[in-house]
């Protein structure tokens, strides 16, 4: 009876059409499901805790190098923090500060474009400087003039020592490349261990008594060749 409603060939045609229709509709459906609001909501909630985290963390954690929970870390030792106004603040992490020591920064001009993984600014003294890379893509919208001027301008790495702000252009895919939370902490701890392998015996005492590493470790390790050590860690 109704089984013969369609003959074999038109039925096959309908099957093919349905299969093609499925594939064609699946693409926008997939894009719709995958798109939409992302983790930004969570980050904004965390943002007000920044000041508290920055103060409380050093007391609670015995780690050498600190990192608050609300910043994303690039393996080249630069960090990015999402701000409520949609911009991203960029700086050099605690490890970079302690490795290079009192220093000044040469920052990109406002309006310049920076690209994740490529050199964006330099840190160093009057003789030598080391390039550091941008953690995200974007256009520079503000620069921390204090950090650019003073020799110890970098100061507090995640607070006053921020370097510049960008308006991100590819934030979502950039964030995939960055480390956050416990992973970032582990990364810094591992970097610290790698560094301790290179330390000279006279600095060993600092470690054995459980002290915090002094600023300017690269100079302590390699003297005038400090920039080579720093470049290795900064991936430049």
């Amino acid at each position, binding site marked *: 009876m*109704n*089984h*013969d*409603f*369609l003959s074999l060939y038109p*039925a096959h045609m*309908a*099957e093919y059409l*349905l*299969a093609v*229709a*499925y594939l064609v509709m*699946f693409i926008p*459906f*997939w894009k*719709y*499901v*995958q*798109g*939409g*609001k992302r983790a930004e*909501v969570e980050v904004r909630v965390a943002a007000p805790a920044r000041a508290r985290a920055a103060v409380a963390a050093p007391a609670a954690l015995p780690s050498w190098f600190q990192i608050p929970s609300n910043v994303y870390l690039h393996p080249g030792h630069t960090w990015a923090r999402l701000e409520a106004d949609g911009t991203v603040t960029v700086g050099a992490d605690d490890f970079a500060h302690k490795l290079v020591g009192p220093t000044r920064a040469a920052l990109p001009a406002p309006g310049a474009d920076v690209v994740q993984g490529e050199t964006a600014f330099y840190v160093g003294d009057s003789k030598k400087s080391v390039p550091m890379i941008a953690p995200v893509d974007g256009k520079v919208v503000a620069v921390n003039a204090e950090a650019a001027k003073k020799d110890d301008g970098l100061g507090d790495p995640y607070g006053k020592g921020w370097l510049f702000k960008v308006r991100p252009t590819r934030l979502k895919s950039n964030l995939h490349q960055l480390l956050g939370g416990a992973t970032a902490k582990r990364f810094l701890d591992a970097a610290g261990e790698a560094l301790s392998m290179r330390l000279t015996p006279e600095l060993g005492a600092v470690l054995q008594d459980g002290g915090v590493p002094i600023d300017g470790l690269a100079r302590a390790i390699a003297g005038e060749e400090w920039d080579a050590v720093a470049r290795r860690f900064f991936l430049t």
Partner: protein
Amino acid sequence: MANGTAMTAQPSFFREKILMGMGTREYLRSLLTPFNAVAAVILAIGLPLLVYRFAAGLGATTNLSQTAPWGIWIGFDMMTGIVLAAGGFTIGATVQLFGMKDYHPIERPAILTAFLGYVVAVVGLLADLGRPWNIIQALFNYGTASALFEVAWCVMCYTTVLLLEFTVPFFEWMGWRKIHRIMKNALIALTVLSVMFSTMHQSALGSLFLLAPTKLHPLWYTRFIFIFFFISAILAGISMVIVESSISHKIFAHQLKGHGHGDETKLILGLGKAGAVVSFAYFFLKLQGVIDGHAWGYLATPYGAWFLVELLGFVLLPSLLFAYGARNRKVRVVRWGGGLMVAGIVLNRLNVSVIAFNWQLPAAQRYVPSWMEIAVSFALVTIGVLAFRWIVNRMPILREDPRFAEHH
């Protein structure tokens, strides 16, 4: 709650592990809740009926006949119980095999649900078999061409695997370290087995209907029915975990505090995404089944309308709810989608095995379950829910015992 008298009492195994640290009287008093009262009534009716079925036989208790040998004990308890247990292998594979460790917090509840689902289904099956003691024969008569042979082997093997998977939290609860470590190491192998057996089992339940092309309505009958059963089992697994975690979240909230369940929203949204994609594909496959069976002439009949209710209301709609909820981070919408999807899968299994089965028979000859069958089914589900609650309240299901946490 600890009180003055509790301090003088001897800390015994029974008191700590079974009575949850309460005195006997205090414990019994804590059982007096409206939920328990309803459960007690259901059990008081259902359990004696189950005994009566074994004493007096199927004819006295059910409306089964030669034309309708399968009733709701198969259609509901077995078909639905098994498909809703699919979260065990879905989430197990996600965590253990695909390495998505984010989903670890929901792995144990999913496995426990699967285990209890299977146990309840097996009890329902034993009640339905005319001579249940002969079930053992299925193991020794190698009827490898029979779908029922595959079903029997799979249900026995997979229930065993689920029991072994469940021993991990059980040994943790008992504090038996050595054997706990052995079972924990075996978990990957067990997960591989669970995926294998349940894949075969879920689809073999569908294969059973390949034998009944004239009895099952053409809109539901397709030669791909075993594939449909398998895909809808994955959907049921995902949806059940969503529904269950929502319920657990409310009822067992005190257990979840501070145990890394802050990411629950993320997990539900992730499951919602998976559910959206799978149900979208399932929707098109169901349509493909209709075309392949040359059955769309039936869409304009009452059965066709009922089929469309299932397809549009309980497959496409939850798919869209999943998609909308996952995209816009609306957990409530995803939960609604999950609830609707679970209802849809139950409806599908009932349609296939009861409602659209024997559809050509005159109404007088159609199977309608007796009140006793329904009461027993309710009692079995209630036992499953009570067992789930009993275990979750005592054993490390929603959280791991910190002494057994993986630090090394």
